[in-house]
């Protein structure tokens, strides 16, 4: 069965803060895997802030369905083909999760860089596979002198195997809120990391 855009969206959103707070995680996880409770899952997904981004990306690229898999992938993983930026005098809005998430630290008193680090999408190499868990070389988001950076020295963290069924040590894993979402090719992974670094740099420039 091909993964739909709705199911891919559910993979990313099932552990997000709103889903956890409102008790949506299990329903979205089951929907992501089995496609069950379609109507309820869609109702939930449409209420999450990520849906606003899907709508903007879809409209900007003349795609009718905001849950189109291309749109959902573009928001969470970035995309070099779809139009993904909105320019305004003095600022630019990158239609990419790892850009939009950085603002949260300015808006929510008490939100830590560690919170944002878990919420950003990360890609890292698997360095160990255990029962239901994967060890990855995680590049942590840090803040220094008001600017964000990804650490150059990865640390090993353990994430849930989540939606990844087959993998080997050395595979590139994309994860969000410490749950594995998918396996990427090396080319996709390196492009994603480059996009994330670019998004962080753009955010820092605009805050300077």
């Amino acid at each position: 069965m091909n993964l739909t855009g709705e199911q891919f969206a559910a993979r990313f959103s099932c552990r997000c803060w709103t889903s956890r707070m409102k008790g949506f995680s299990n329903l979205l996880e089951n929907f992501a895997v089995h496609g069950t409770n379609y109507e309820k899952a869609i109702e939930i997904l449409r209420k999450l802030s990520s849906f606003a981004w899907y709508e903007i990306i879809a409209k900007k690229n003349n795609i009718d369905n905001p849950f189109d898999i291309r749109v959902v992938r573009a928001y969470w993983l970035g995309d070099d083909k779809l139009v993904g930026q909105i320019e305004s005098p003095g600022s630019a809005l990158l239609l990419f999760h790892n850009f939009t998430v950085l603002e949260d630290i300015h808006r929510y008193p008490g939100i830590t860089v560690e919170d944002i680090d878990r919420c950003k999408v990360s890609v890292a190499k698997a360095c160990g596979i255990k029962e239901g868990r994967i060890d990855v070389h995680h590049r942590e988001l840090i803040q220094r002198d008001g600017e964000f950076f990804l650490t150059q020295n990865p640390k090993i963290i353990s994430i849930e195997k989540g939606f990844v069924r087959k993998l080997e040590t050395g595979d590139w894993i994309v994860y969000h809120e410490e749950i594995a979402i998918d396996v990427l090719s090396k080319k996709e992974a390196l492009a994603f990391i480059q996009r994330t670094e670019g998004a962080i740099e753009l955010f820092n420039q605009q805050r300077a």
Partner: protein
Amino acid sequence: MCLSIPVKILSIKNNKAIVDFGDKKEEFDFRLTPDIKIKDYVLVNNGFLIKKISAAEAEEIFKVIYPVKGGVKPKEEI
């Protein structure tokens, strides 16, 4: 946090929307939500209004995010 905070439109001038952000007012670009009106609720991110929402939807979000880690509900909100 995959979350956008709702704010209320206070005024619109010079192609910018002035919104109530708790104890301060801020200007936002509203090209993505061209049909906004004063008193509408919208979601914001990085200087842009990204989506108009209903008062009921805003209330639902406020119920989830306030209080969150010391967050303070905007004075003029629901």
